[in-house]
Each structure stands twice: as structure tokens, then as C-alpha cells.
């Protein structure tokens, strides 16, 4: 049997938040590695470039093609520099995977105005700015494109992280709207809603008990990882998903398919 073609052969991808905030593999790192493994050339963008270099090393170890770039996605000029860099280095842009994100706990009473603005800027506005800067280059590249935004199941349900929930719900609405706006340019825009995955972003506030609680919270009772989110991103980025746009795909071991009281008593969610 002939070897199957790679799933992203000939494509150029930009991954924001391509490094992980600690040891292990987060959503952006996993997506970057999978994109490169399937033949894409990947621009690895991170606020802390040394983190993106770890991802780069892993891609180089597999013989993939990628490079790093420092960038602050809350600044439009950095986003524009990012898109231009991808064009300069690789000649085109086909895929933008928006991974940048931070956690933010608290009720509206507890959260400071400053923290509210910060989470909305980092989790939502960065997608707007990165997309604003990149879409014209995707159109100029002439092959259509795919944008993947990382939302969260916290955008679908209360999650005892009110500012985070609001920002991630915003990502879903933004995705629907961007999908409608840019369908005529053959740019597909979809989002993924990861469930309680264990990634470097959440690791600092975890302990063994909490990891077990989170694992048991969803019907499958398995611990999700950045790879689970990465494989979903790979599918949505590839031409296999060429007729999919404007969707929100939960990757959550069934958590949002269940009545909230069944596995995740809302009054216990502060434990997350």
C-alpha cells in the first residue's frame, strides 16, 4: 500500500502560545509538534521565546521544519510582525492556531478590574489581533485557510472562574462570527473546548488529589493531555475538515454531555 500523504503537506502554520509554561506538553506545544509531524512548516510564537525553543527542539528531533519568534499577542504590531515573519520565512500562511491563554479565578465581586481586563485581553483580544494581522496574508497566499481558537468548557458552563469563563465564552462567539465573516475567503474558523486536561498551565495549582478529582469528574475517567487537544487542532487544521467551519468541539471526556450534577456538583467546583 502506498504511504499516505502527510496531512498538512505544503502548508505553513503559525501557532501562538507554542511554548509551554512549564515541564510537559501543553496544547500549543502538542499542536505545533503534530503540525510539523504532518508536514507543515511551523512558526512557533511565544511571549517567552525560550519556551518556544523547547518546542522547536522537539520538532527538530523528529526532523520537522519550524522556527521560533518572540511576540506579545496583546500588541498589534507584534502580531503583524508575526504574520510578516511567516511570509518571509516560509512564503505563505495557511493555518493560525490561537493558543495564548491564562487562568483567572474569582467572582465579579472578587476580581479586580485590572485582572478582568487582563484575562479578556490575553484570552480574547489576542485572537482578534493575531487574526486581524494574519488573515490578509492567508488570503494573499491563495489557498484558503484554517484558524483554530482554543476556548474551554469553561466557556460553556459555570466553572468557578468567572472572568476566565467570560473570556472563553467570548472565544466561542468570536469563532462563530469570524467563520461567517471569512467563509467567502475560504478561511475556516473553529474552536476547541478542552475539558479538564492536565497541562503545564494548570500544573502549578494541582496536587495528586486534585488531579484525581479532575480525572474522575468526567465520564471517561481518564486524564486528558495537551495531545488530545493537539490532535483535534490537527484535524481542524487539515483539509480533512474542509467543510467544517464555525463549530465548537468539546474535547472533554464527556463532561459537558452530562447533567452538571451527575459528575461535577457545582457547589464543589471551587476545588478545580
Amino acid at each position, binding site marked *: 500500500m502506498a504511504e499516505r500523504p502527510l496531512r498538512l503537506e505544503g502548508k505553513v502554520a503559525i501557532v501562538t502560545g507554542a511554548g509551554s509554561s512549564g515541564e510537559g506538553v501543553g496544547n500549543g506545544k502538542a499542536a505545533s509538534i503534530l503540525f510539523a509531524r504532518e508536514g507543515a512548516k511551523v512558526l512557533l510564537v511565544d511571549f517567552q521565546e525560550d519556551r518556544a525553543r523547547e518546542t522547536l527542539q522537539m520538532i527538530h528531533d523528529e526532523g520537522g521544519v519550524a522556527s521560533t519568534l518572540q511576540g506579545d499577542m496583546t500588541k498589534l504590531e507584534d502580531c503583524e510582525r508575526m504574520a510578516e515573519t511567516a511570509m518571509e520565512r516560509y512564503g505563505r500562511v495557511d493555518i493560525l492556531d490561537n493558543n495564548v491563554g491564562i487562568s483567572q479565578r474569582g467572582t465579579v465581586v472578587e476580581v479586580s478590574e485590572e485582572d478582568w481586563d487582563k484575562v479578556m485581553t490575553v484570552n480574547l483580544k489576542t485572537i482578534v489581533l493575531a487574526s486581524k494581522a494574519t488573515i490578509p496574508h492567508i488570503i494573499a497566499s491563495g489557498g484558503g485557510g484554517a484558524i483554530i481558537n482554543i476556548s474551554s468548557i469553561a466557556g460553556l458552563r459555570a466553572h468557578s472562574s468567572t472572568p476566565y469563563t467570560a473570556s472563553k465564552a467570548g472565544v466561542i462567539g468570536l469563532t462563530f462570527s469570524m467563520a461567517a465573516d471569512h467563509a467567502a475567503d475560504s478561511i475556516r474558523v473553529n474552536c476547541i473546548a478542552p475539558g479538564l486536561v492536565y497541562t503545564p498551565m494548570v500544573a502549578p495549582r494541582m496536587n495528586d488529589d486534585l488531579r484525581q478529582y479532575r480525572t474522575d469528574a468526567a465520564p471517561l475517567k481518564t486524564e486528558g493531555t495537551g495531545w488530545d487537544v493537539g490532535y483535534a487542532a490537527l484535524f481542524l487544521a487539515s483539509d480533512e475538515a474542509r*467543510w467544517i467551519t464555525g*463549530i465548537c468541539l468539546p474535547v*472533554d471526556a464527556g463532561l459537558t454531555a452530562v447533567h452538571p450534577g451527575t459528575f461535577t456538583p457545582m457547589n464543589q467546583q471551587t476545588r478545580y
Partner: protein
Amino acid sequence: MRLAGKVAIISGGSRGMGAYEAELFVREGAKVVVGDVLEDEGRNLAEKIGEDAFFLRLDVTSEADWAAAVKLAVDRYGKLDVLVNNAGVSARGTIEETSVADWDRVMDINAKGVFLGTRAAIPEMRKAGGGSIINISSQLGLVGMGESSPQYQASKGAVRIFTKSAAIQYAADGIRVNSVHPGPIVTPMTETRRSDAAVQQVMISRIPLGRYGESEDVAYGVLYLASDESSFVTGSELVIDGGWTAQ
């Protein structure tokens, strides 16, 4: 290969989306039992694919047919890992125009058929240590459309929520259950509607990506859900509709 070593049953596998899935699954390393009431087309397809596919007559409303399909998969290929509940029929008309007989016919094939297939497959999947069930619902299981029919929409809505019920009940056995929601696809089932140019124009105007879907557009989504790449995905709805329901 993404389905190496896996054994699948695809209902309604003789033509359209099911047939494309059968060929794609085998290309990705699976063995496939193609079940359908369309016997000539199913046999021809299985013959074309070769020894990794086998056709069996499967009326999805028949408990005996489902038992035979599961037995065939296990006898011939050793186990069962994947079930695609793809068989379905369409219908048009208003509630007042719909006879009880036609309501029952559509609900039996589209909804009860998914229940019977799932029930028949679960014991063997449990023995295999887990599995993946993909139920083909429709965008019309999510949103209403005047040109459809009450029984079609009700049946596809039933598939949507049945999927979540099954996902929760069998998660502990490692069995994942997800639904796929295609928009209008170029298949034999949609031929009548597509032959009316005015209707087709209206349909396309509602699809942001500006065209009907093809069988392969759905089949690759089904492949993702069948494979271990989606091992953390259950109870989810994968919408494949060119952006229709995002608007």
C-alpha cells in the same frame, strides 16, 4: 495507519457517506463489515475493497440482523472496536401531511436503528476493552428547517441526545459515543432535493462555505472520532455543515 488493527461495522454502508467511510477505514488499516439493505451495491463495494471488507444484509430495524452483523464481525475479524450508525432515510412534509405510518418508518430506521445497533455492539466492545460509536445525526437534529419534516428532525434530534445517554452510561467501559451532524451532502439520499435547481439555490445560499458537502467531508470527521486521536472525546457533537448552524 490511524485505524490499524481495528474492526468496524458501518450501517448504511453500501453507498453515499457510509461507502466512503468503508473505503477510508480500510485505507487506514481497519477491517469493515458493510451492512445495508441495498445488497447489490453493498456486495459490489465489498468486492472492490477486497478481503478487508465484507458485506452483510442489515436492516437496522431488525434485532436479528444486528446480532448477525456483530457475530460476523467477531467471527470473521476477531472483535469489534468501531460502530458507525450511518443508515438513515429522509422525509419531507408538514406535520399535518405526515401519516402515522411514515412517522413510525422514519423513527424506526433513524432513531430505533441507532439504539439497536448500539445495544448489539456494546457487549463485544466491552470485551475488546473499549470502542468508539459514531452516530450520524444531522444539522437538522440541532436546528429547525421548514423544508424538512417533523419525523426526520425528531429522529435526528433523538440521535443527538441518545448519543449523550450512551456516552455517559458506557464511558466506564471505555466506549466513546459521539454524534456527527452533517449539513446537506451530495449523496443519493439528497438527489431529489438537489434535482430542483431553485431549492438547491436556497440551500447553498444558507451555507457560508458556498457548496454542498461531499461524502468525504463527513467521512474524515468519522475517521477522527473512530481513531484513538479522539480518545478524550465522548458525548460531543461534531458539526460538519459548511458553517450553516454557526450563523
